[in-house]
């Protein structure tokens, strides 16, 4: 079949005459294994993938443009919507970037709370990945178990932020409010039972011969390719590159936590599965350390012109009321400059590039999202293999289309 009008040109198109046995197949944008609105234009020879071309942009909403029309503090809710499976990681990255521009000191308790909640976010995100990945492969049971535990995490988010998914809990200068009284007990209760649950998933999958055969040796990405193509996070560590921003370039007091960075060397789907499963166990350890060592103190920076005052103060003190009015109506000016803040999100290295021109609205906000770069490597991983392996690859690299298209 030849390419028809409207089909995007494959990269480096070859003479069609030689390929009259090949078929061009569109997977997506609506497809059960696509993890969002992704379209893959696949050239196949029988069932073998010859070439592969991701067509993205279906979810492009122009968030970067929208940011330029908002005050700095109004951008925080937008960052939730980029990656709807790990909102706290996006909140954190944006807040850290703006705080770096402002040179703002964040109280210790706020930093520890941020670590605790971003690690819960990591669990949340990895649970969705595990459930959907296993479901793509045909192991339906795990999906329901993962969503059962995810529900517990979402309840904790709801308790602390009032929202299950679009939390917007981190604010420039700290947190939006004190965590509720039973918050730490709830988190403790959750992580007491969670390691057993990881064992449960592992029991269902790790020894399962179908699952093993579908993943082992499939979608191999070498360490050099991973770094060259900008693949980061668990996908890169599955290829044997031992680098994690939390350990190597710590932010938000990660240097005070002890944890291992799981690395696997095979670079196939199975290695990525092992790395993520081990990462969940490490996250539990970090959360435990955060609970044990949670410092006392304020949760907001002492910067009345940037951080909204407490409700009580606002009702009783004239100055607080003025500050509140000023921040809400005029925002706050941020000194001119440009910063890039990178963090280790559940999917890899996330970065926010914020440029200020000295006014109350960001001049430019750019998000470097890990899935966008990971998608570049999909052809390398899936080429020369069966279509069904392509489904395993898409599941194993854990992409979210919201953050690819923004």
């Amino acid at each position: 079949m030849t390419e028809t009008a409207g089909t995007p040109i494959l990269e480096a198109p070859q003479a069609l005459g030689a390929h009259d046995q090949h078929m061009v197949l569109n997977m997506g944008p609506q497809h059960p294994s696509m993890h969002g609105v992704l379209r893959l234009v696949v050239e196949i020879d029988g069932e073998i993938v010859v070439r592969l071309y991701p067509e993205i942009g279906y979810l492009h909403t122009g968030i970067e443009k929208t940011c330029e029309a908002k005050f700095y503090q109004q951008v925080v809710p937008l960052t939730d919507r980029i990656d709807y499976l790990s909102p706290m990681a996006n909140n954190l990255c944006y807040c850290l970037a703006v705080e770096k521009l402002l040179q703002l000191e964040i109280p210790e308790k706020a930093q520890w709370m941020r670590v605790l909640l971003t690690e819960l976010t990591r669990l949340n995100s990895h649970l969705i990945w595990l459930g959907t990945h296993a479901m793509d492969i045909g192991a339906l049971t795990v999906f329901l178990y993962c969503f059962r535990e995810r529900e517990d995490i979402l309840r904790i988010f709801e308790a602390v932020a009032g929202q299950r998914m679009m939390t917007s809990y981190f604010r420039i200068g700290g947190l939006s409010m004190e965590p509720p009284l039973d918050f730490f007990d709830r988190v403790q209760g959750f992580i007491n039972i969670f390691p057993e649950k990881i064992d449960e998933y592992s029991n269902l999958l790790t020894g399962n011969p179908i699952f093993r055969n579908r993943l082992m040796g499939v979608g191999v990405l070498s360490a050099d390719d991973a770094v060259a193509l900008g693949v980061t996070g668990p996908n890169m560590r599955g290829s044997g590159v031992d680098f994690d921003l939390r350990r190597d370039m710590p932010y938000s007091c990660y240097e005070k936590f002890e944890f291992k960075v799981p690395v696997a060397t095979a670079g196939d789907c199975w290695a990525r599965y092992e790395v993520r499963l081990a990462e969940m166990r490490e996250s539990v350890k970090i959360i435990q350390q955060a609970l044990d060592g949670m410092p006392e103190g304020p949760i907001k920076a002492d910067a009345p012109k940037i951080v909204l005052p407490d409700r009580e103060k606002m009702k009783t003190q004239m100055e607080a009321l003025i500050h509140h009015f000023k921040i809400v109506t005029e925002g706050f000016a941020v000194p001119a400059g440009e910063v890039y803040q990178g963090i280790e999100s559940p999917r890899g290295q996330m970065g926010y590039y914020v440029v200020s021109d000295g006014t109350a609205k960001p001049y430019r906000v750019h998000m470097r999202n890990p899935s966008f770069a990971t998608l570049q490597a999909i052809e390398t991983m899936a080429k020369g293999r069966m279509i069904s392996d392509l489904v395993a690859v898409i599941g194993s690299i854990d992409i979210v289309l919201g953050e690819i298209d923004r």
Partner: protein
Amino acid sequence: MSAPANDLLTKAAVLEGLPDHPAIKAVLAFNPESLTDTRFDRGELTLTIAAEHIRGAAAAVKAAGYNAFEDVTAVDWFPSSPRFQVSYHILSHAHKERIRLRVMLPAEDPSVETVTSVWPGANYYEREVFDLFGIQFEGHPNLRRIMMPDDWVGHPLRKDYPVEGYR
């Protein structure tokens, strides 16, 4: 590498304050004229590279250990001149450090050589900058729109493009 405590805001101050920085040394060894400005601000090092030398400078810093390409994006400084700033963020796994390369481009026919030959991971990012800012990357293997539809008119992230689009 010990970072200086204060910001170094001019080229002379950076060259004096960070004499042994591997990226600066690599760029100066490649071509002293390619480095038009540097700045060390808020713990981040920015090297401004003359546009015609970007590929060579990129290869030089890559050889100096800045192996992991992270990001390319642009800033539109409309109506000032030069109008476009292209920012490359490069991470070094060995030095555990990130640098920013910066290229300034004019408003008319902004064009710069691609760095995909140095870091293949720049492919999608340069396409995104092309799509949303209209900056050409010479030698790019597949410079097509990536976010917007192929028949879209205009480049949405330019400052003269209204937030709600053309009416």
